């Protein structure tokens, strides 16, 4: 009996334990939930898919989704649909295409952020200032302010600046910033960056207050400025700061150029020229043009040596200029009784409105110069340039050579030129190494030379 009770108790215990195991499954299939893929089948959606999603696995999110924007202090609006395509065309031409051409499709597919979120209004901060773009997590770039789209180049360049800035961060997250970069500034990084004035930042060799906050921002600002604002802007900024700051800025430039080559095998100078070509040719932003900086007297000299500079044999020179140059050269060399040798020509831009043509020649081993003064007038918007030979009669060497170099003087004096980065195909260094002029309306009649600042 006792055993029976024990057995029964044991059996009951088993039943009790088993009976406690209740299993109920709420069978919900999350695949059937509304997943909110708002892309439709409009022409715009097709264009975005063909231009970005298919080639680059890059999703452009322009339809409002509250979950991409969590800032409670300010509202934000979706973009006007008609502004999406022009904005993304800028992204394609000013950012994706240059990288694709220089670094290759694989590089872009691998490194380009996968989500691009677009908003119509600015993103306002609590202090009322507005933000134009942000990058997060190496995977998303957010661009604000599409409703302010305009065909003016300033809209496109300001956005491209943001994009190249943010993309530099993403590159830096792939391959870290070279350790010697931070040392260039000698420990002058300081937060909050808003407490550093623009002039203090410049004196310390930074491209602005924002760059003085941290090495990562400094790096992104350096890259974006070189690519979008242009080499001339960068050089002018460095030239107008103090000697220490200039040295630092040039070291930072060299660091960035070297980083692109060693870390990614990208020729930074080619990339820079691609972006600048787009800004100059398509956006028609005069502030990146040769004429604009000639008008600000950034470039002080242009050396032309047709026979000894390999650039001319590599990229050619127009027949008209070659004739004027070589005829002048032959004339000088043929002046009887002097035994002169014509060496080269240099245009000295002594101010924004004056140019002196210097003919370098020698007698035996002694070098001489002959100077001819021109007035110069450059129009910012078009680069149109007119040289007018001074009416004052030349004296000394200039008088002696006057009739001999007349073909060059006539060529410069009679033509109306357009200043440009020439030769157009130049690709073996910084695009600002060479500049030149072509005759307005006749691009095949041109000359160029090595620029000095």
């Amino acid at each position: 009996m006792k055993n029976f009770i024990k057995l029964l108790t044991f059996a009951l215990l088993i039943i009790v334990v088993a009976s406690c195991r209740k299993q109920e499954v709420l069978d919900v299939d999350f695949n059937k939930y509304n997943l909110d893929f708002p892309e439709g089948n409009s022409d715009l959606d097709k264009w975005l898919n063909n231009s970005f999603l298919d080639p680059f696995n890059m999703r452009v999110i322009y339809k409002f989704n509250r979950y991409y924007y969590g800032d409670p202090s300010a509202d934000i609006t979706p973009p006007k649909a008609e502004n999406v395509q022009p904005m993304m065309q800028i992204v394609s031409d000013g950012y994706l295409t240059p990288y694709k051409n220089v670094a290759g499709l694989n590089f872009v597919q691998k490194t380009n952020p996968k989500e691009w979120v677009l908003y119509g209004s600015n993103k306002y901060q609590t202090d009322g200032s507005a933000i134009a773009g942000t990058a997060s997590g190496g995977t998303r770039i957010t661009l604000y302010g599409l409703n302010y789209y305009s065909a003016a180049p300033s809209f496109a360049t300001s956005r491209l600046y943001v994009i190249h800035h943010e993309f530099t961060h993403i590159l830096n997250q792939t391959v870290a910033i070279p350790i010697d970069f931070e040392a260039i500034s000698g420990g002058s990084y300081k937060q909050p960056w808003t407490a550093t004035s623009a002039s203090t930042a410049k004196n310390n060799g930074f491209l602005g207050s924002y760059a003085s906050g941290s090495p990562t921002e400094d790096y992104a600002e350096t890259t974006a400025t070189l690519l979008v604002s242009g080499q001339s802007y960068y050089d002018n900024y460095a030239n107008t700061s103090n000697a220490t700051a200039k040295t630092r800025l040039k070291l930072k430039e060299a660091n960035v150029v070297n980083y692109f080559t060693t870390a990614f095998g990208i020729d930074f100078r080619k990339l820079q020229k691609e972006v600048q070509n787009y800004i100059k040719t398509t956006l028609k932003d005069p502030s990146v043009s040769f004429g604009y900086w000639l008008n600000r007297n950034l470039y002080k000299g242009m050396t032309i040596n047709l026979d000894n500079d390999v650039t001319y044999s590599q990229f050619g020179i127009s027949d008209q200029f070659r004739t004027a140059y070589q005829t002048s050269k032959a004339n000088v060399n043929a002046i009887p009784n002097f035994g002169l040798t014509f060496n080269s020509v240099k245009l000295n831009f002594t101010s924004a409105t004056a140019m002196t043509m210097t003919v370098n020649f020698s007698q035996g081993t002694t070098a001489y110069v002959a100077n001819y003064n021109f007035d110069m007038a450059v129009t910012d918007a078009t680069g149109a340039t007119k040289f007018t030979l001074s009416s004052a009669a030349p004296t000394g060497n200039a008088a002696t050579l006057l009739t001999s170099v007349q073909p060059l003087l006539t060529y410069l004096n009679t033509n109306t030129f357009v200043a440009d980065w020439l030769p157009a195909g130049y690709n073996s260094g910084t695009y600002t190494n060479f500049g030149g002029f072509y005759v307005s309306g006749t691009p095949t009649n041109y000359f160029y030379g090595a620029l000095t600042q």
Partner: protein
Amino acid sequence: MKKILFLFVFALALASCKKSSFVSKFDEDPDVRMNEAIAKVKTILGTSDYGWIATMPTLDGGGYSFFLKFDGKDSVKMIGDLSDASSSKVAVSSYRIKQDAGVDLVFDTYNYITLLNDPDPSAFGGNLKTGFKSDIDFIYDRSTADSIVFIGKRYRQSLKMVKATADQKATYEAGGLKVAIDKIKAYFVANPNSYIETVSGGTTVKSAVNLNFTNDVAAGKRLDLSAVLADGSVVSSSVKFAHTLNGVDFLSNLTQSGIDFVNIKWKDASTLAIYDSNGKEYIIKSSPTPLIPLFRLWGSKYVGMLSQYKTIYPGTSTAGAVILNYYHNGLVPPTQPYAFNYGRINFAWNVPNKSLKLSGFSSQNGGSSGWITDIIYNYTFTDAGVFKFTLNTAASGGYVAVPLSKLDSFLLTNTVTFDYYVDNGNLYGKMTSVEDPSIVMTFLLQ
């Protein structure tokens, strides 16, 4: 002991046999129900053949109405009573319906409704960062056979839509909303002193009707109803309104003397009437002069008056201009030793304390910042509206006590009346001396 153990186990076994299965409170799983709800809203919106007429208040601004035609997929055509352009030109943008905390209707690219949400004041005059405090995504709330209601996700304002008829759709698409807006605006420009009569306790009360048709965030798209009661007190109520093809709709009930007013409609081609919730009609009549004396509205409709820097408003007499100019021209030496390049005079009424604060503002940076000199008066007034001021606190703070002194002594030595002054359609406040009626000053009403 063992029996107790046995009994315990037995009881436990019995209890454990009671299995209560999971029973859903709903007849379907959440994914199914959600998709059903989304499909339902999509169907309702897309299948109104002639579109929807929607009204929506904003949290910070006034009320607005829209004509919306959803294509059932992702495109919506819109007309809105925001501006001349928005009320006459159809704009197309996209929308989508998705799952959120409920079913969410998102106007996901820019359209007229987005202007109210725009954080940039240059877009439509909203406040920086928050616009009019209006939404672009709305959670489905409820629907009937011919209406559907959504609630704004962030600012909780209701977007109420009613099915439009074929005629209404045609009228909206032909720019009829702008015609309707222009017509009612013109009526109130021509009849600035409109009022309605209500009977309360055997006496007839006249209530002034004022509509602010602007898009000003603080005051625009609102209607004021102000009545002077038998005891002389003024009752003012305000409601946000939106334009319809035949008048305006109030976006919440406007209650005065126990009557709920709901809209204004054209009774005939030239007669407007306000209707209450029972459909009773109150014809809007016109009075040649403002219905409520200005002094009755101090502290309610008008909190003060303003004399802007070096601005003498129409209606100011020569003697009045002398007093005001003594301030504006005295912001530079020799009246007082400092050189200011901006200043203004403000009157601020404090009705509960029966006091008036006279403030002289002076600035050396064009008004961005500056200093304020305050003088506080106590006042009494008769039923006829004759005000007498006595000094409560003499000039303190700031640097402009001397330039203010002429106005100060005027207020202390004269009794004054306040009245309206209308010039070229603009309304000003007029202050006149009883003792010397040649002294008249006009101000902007605030």
